[in-house]
């Protein structure tokens, strides 16, 4: 389908675009901080087996040692040990794998389904649109976490079930974005032109609709990672998600909760910090991407350009401008 001119020109243009996006992205210190934290967590997940080596048939992070249960943080166990003597840091390292995997799968599946549903309802309208949009209204009528709890509870424990449970709530966001975009381009002349030279609906969506809503989709995906990880942790926390002895952060919180009143704070503190950090980072990245991908969507965030503009405005008003 792609002609030679297109292939010859495209890489250059793409590179320039990516460069410009990166240039804008790195001006936002919080977004860069988020990116760094996520990179570190990916490394932690990737090297989890090195950090917490397996021991024969029993994975190292799951090795129980009753002689050292509920130890507070020390040089040997930097985050302490849990109620059956497992190193909390080791378990957090392995938990990073699960959280990142759940986030990634939920976002990719939610995005695929959401984009498909959004395109269908936008392009074809009629009864298809009615059914799809009512279905989305139904999902939106219940708080996301509650949907996830019900589905996870009904399906029973397990990684795949958690992904399905959390993934359902991820669909509406993408579907709405894509549907809106389809509706706004559907009747435009370039779409008509493309159709008249024989482009089918799939190609129209791929070539003319999706490129126009990439920015909000990418932002939604980044925020969606945060939401999915949070929901999955919440599920394990109340006991309908991944079950012990899986090293999942929410499940670790849940286990630590029983020892909280007895003063063993480290069992809940550290897994929670990691959940908060990963959620915070993906939210930050999403925020930064929103500004970087499409300056028109620019919300309220830091940037030098804006800073200068405000300085100029303040100078114009005769105030002593600038950061206090």
């Amino acid at each position, binding site marked *: 389908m792609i002609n030679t001119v297109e292939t010859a020109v495209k890489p250059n243009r793409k590179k320039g675009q990516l460069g410009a996006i990166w240039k804008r992205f790195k001006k936002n210190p919080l977004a860069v901080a988020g990116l760094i934290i996520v990179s570190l967590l990916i490394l932690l997940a990737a090297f989890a087996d090195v950090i917490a080596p397996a021991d024969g048939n029993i994975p190292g992070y799951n090795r129980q040692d009753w002689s050292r249960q509920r130890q507070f943080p020390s040089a040997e166990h930097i985050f302490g040990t849990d109620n059956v003597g497992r190193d909390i840091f080791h378990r957090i390292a392995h938990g990073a794998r699960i959280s990142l995997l759940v986030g990634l799968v939920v976002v990719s599946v939610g995005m695929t389904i959401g984009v498909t549903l959004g395109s269908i309802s936008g392009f074809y309208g009629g009864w298809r649109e009615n059914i799809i949009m*009512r279905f989305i209204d139904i999902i939106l009528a219940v708080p996301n*976490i*509650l949907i996830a709890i019900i589905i996870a*509870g009904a399906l029973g424990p397990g990684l795949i079930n958690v992904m399905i449970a959390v993934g359902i709530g991820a669909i509406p966001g993408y579907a709405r974005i894509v549907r809106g975009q389809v509706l706004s381009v559907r009747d435009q002349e370039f779409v008509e032109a493309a159709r008249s030279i024989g482009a089918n609906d799939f190609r129209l969506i791929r070539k003319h609709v999706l490129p126009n809503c990439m920015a909000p989709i990418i932002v939604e995906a980044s925020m969606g990672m945060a939401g999915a990880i949070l929901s999955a942790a919440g599920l394990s926390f*109340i006991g309908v998600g991944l079950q012990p002895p899986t090293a999942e952060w929410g499940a670790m919180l849940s286990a630590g909760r029983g020892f909280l009143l007895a003063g063993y704070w480290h069992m809940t503190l550290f897994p929670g910090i990691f959940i908060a950090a990963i*959620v915070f980072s993906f939210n930050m990245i999403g925020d930064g991407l929103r500004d970087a991908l499409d300056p028109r969507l620019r919300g309220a965030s*830091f940037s030098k350009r804006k800073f200068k503009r405000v300085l100029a405005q303040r100078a114009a*008003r005769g105030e002593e401008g600038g950061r206090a």
Partner: protein
Amino acid sequence: MHKFILKRFLMLIPVLLGLVFILFTILHFAPGDPAMVIGGEAATEERLQEIREEFGLLDPFIVQFGNYMWGIIRLDFGVSWITNNSVGEEIFARFPNTIQLAAMGVTLGLLLGIPLGILSATKQYSALDTGATVFGLLGVSIPNFWLGLMMIMFFSVTLGWLPPTGFGEPIQWIMPTVAIGTGSMAIIMRMTRSSMLECIRQDYIRTARAKGQKERIVIFRHALKNALIPVTTVAGLNFGFLLGGAVLTETIFAIPGIGSLAVSAIQARDRPVILGGVLLFAVTFSVVNLLVDILYAFIDPRIRSQYR
């Protein structure tokens, strides 16, 4: 305007019916034997058979669903499979706690979020603004259930100031409110800030300043009024969001609300209670969102005039 409200209201009905149908289907075909839930693990096969007949569990799916819907229409939510209590009584007895928790959370969010947002916008790029922004971002990212646990650890265990659980006394409201309200405070703050920043740049603000109006009046009378319109929407939507947050918060603080009821029912596979609880959640959530839409149209004269 009335037509718009009525139409939106009627549109809720198919959505809620669809929701009940989907939930019922999921729960019906979920693995596990309902008779075992009702009779307990120790029930004999004979007893299980009796239960199946008594509760109509041998009927085809569509008959069971029809019976349930017929009950719902008469506002009869059935009886709990575990406790044998009336589901309707149980959910409506617990409902006020959930609403109160969510309302207190939103109130906290508004009381702290709006002033912080205004301060942050009027002193843009100051240390205070940076601090408020970081705080706001942390607020949306910290899981409310973890925040609750950390507060229990600090205020109940270490300091011994606040009771770790319960919801009867006002002193027991503090931690749940903070746990559930921090996220919405952060969101309201960010919304107020960005909306305020946009308003401050408008021409009419420049005009107000140009005529020599005091800065305080410019901000509070001219800018804030317009800036708060999107904030109301966000606050209203947050109320719904907090209903979701209540599910976990209630569980942590052992608050007898719909959220904790739904969670324990899901764990116990108590189908009538799950359906009743979730349905009440959905109705509240949808009605709140609808009210927010109406309110939004009502408080913004620009939109209101379109419906005249």
